[in-house]
């Protein structure tokens, strides 16, 4: 068995995946990425993640007042936990709140809650970056992608999938700790779904471009023997008196 590892895209052509929700919330970021930073920014549904800048790094994008708002607490916690289960590295870009034309910019009121959130994020290993606005956010994203490229983690597969590969993508995404980019790598670096399922731990790790522990988790799930009693088709059990 051998995996058909494709060479990564030529240097200078960095790829970044953008969640489709960002079309509404940050069209300026997407256009600045494309026009000013020269990055290939592919928009698709990433489901729970704003940006993916490398094979292992996700970037969450929030405004300062979102982080400081207690209403946002549960959502932020869920997202950060899910991102940390899917990615080796998680970054959070804190963008300054925007002021509408005619509005005077009010200085951000730092609360104890905000400081507590920030300190918990730091302790959880989330990397924090501060941005003044959409242009700045795009520059930070491009810089993150460049740093990751230098470390050999750049996204190196085509960003679109069609037909059979699209079906396989959905299958891979259902596996534990498989992010969108990991699923994309699996789609392009293996010839068939069976090749993934039958591959050794080493070739799974290489083809999916993941850490050893993640490869082990995927490998274990593919070989996991289900308890057939749990597979009863939800017919209500009758208790015999």
């Amino acid at each position, binding site marked *: 068995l051998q995996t058909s590892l494709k060479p990564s895209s030529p240097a200078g052509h960095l790829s970044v995946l953008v969640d489709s929700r960002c079309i509404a919330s940050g069209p300026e970021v997407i256009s600045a990425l494309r026009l000013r930073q020269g990055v290939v920014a592919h928009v698709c549904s990433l489901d729970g993640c704003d940006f993916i800048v490398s094979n292992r790094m996700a970037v969450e994008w929030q405004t300062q007042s979102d982080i400081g708002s207690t209403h946002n607490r549960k959502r932020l916690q869920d997202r950060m936990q899910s991102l940390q289960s899917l990615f080796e590295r998680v970054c959070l870009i804190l963008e300054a709140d925007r002021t509408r034309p005619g509005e005077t910019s009010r200085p951000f009121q730092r609360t104890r809650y905000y400081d507590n959130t920030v300190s*918990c994020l730091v302790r959880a290993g989330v990397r924090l970056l501060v941005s003044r606005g959409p242009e700045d956010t795009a520059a930070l994203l491009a810089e993150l992608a460049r740093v990751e490229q230098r470390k050999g983690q750049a996204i190196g597969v085509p960003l679109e999938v069609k037909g059979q590969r699209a079906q396989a993508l959905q299958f891979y995404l259902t596996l534990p700790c498989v992010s969108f980019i990991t699923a994309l790598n699996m789609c392009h670096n293996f010839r068939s779904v069976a090749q993934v399922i039958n591959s050794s731990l080493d070739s799974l790790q290489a083809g999916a471009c993941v850490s050893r522990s993640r490869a082990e988790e995927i490998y274990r799930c593919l070989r996991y023997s289900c308890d057939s009693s749990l*597979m009863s088709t939800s017919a209500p059990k009758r208790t015999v008196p």
Partner: protein
Amino acid sequence: MANKAVLLNTVPPYGYVVANGKWKGSALAQSLQGNVKVMFEEHLGVVDFLLSDKSCVLHVSESDMVAGSAYKRKIVRFRNANSGLHGLVVVEKTRLSEQDFPSLQKFVVFELGLTLLPVGSAAEAAQLLVQLALGVSKENPFRRSGVSGLLDPVVLALVQQIPGVGKVKAAGLLRRFSSVHQLCGAPVRELEPIVGHAAAQHVWGFFHNPFD
């Protein structure tokens, strides 16, 4: 290096912050003292504060930033001095120092790999340090919980991703072939009795047809 030895051995207990002696009597230290116990230590070198979660803090004030680029050398010395501890750089980002912030962020985060936390003033720095010092004991809501549930529902959901296979067929297949790996190895004739002729072809094709 005597300084280093002192530095690494003084991880303060919970509720305490070890502060560099030069902060004695400062407004920052006073705001800290209202919330945590502060112990002053003369031999911290370039480090300003030590926290009980094994992190150490360098404080870059507004005047440090405005005065020139000497503070960058200080940050490098700070990075080199604290191997084994988590290095946090707290920087006063004010109207005066704001223009230098992007280049500082690039330097500290991207080049040195340290954590950079902007604050508006020394008082805000104290407030943040208190949270950093006191948050250690509490459960961290952002940390990935290590509990992974049973894999059975995951495997069932996986098999349902095969085109033409719903919940009933997926359960039927898994009763006969207990894992995805075994199911993938099954020939069409063994799939047919469970899901019928057409679906059996689909399942086999999904696994084995090479991508175009």
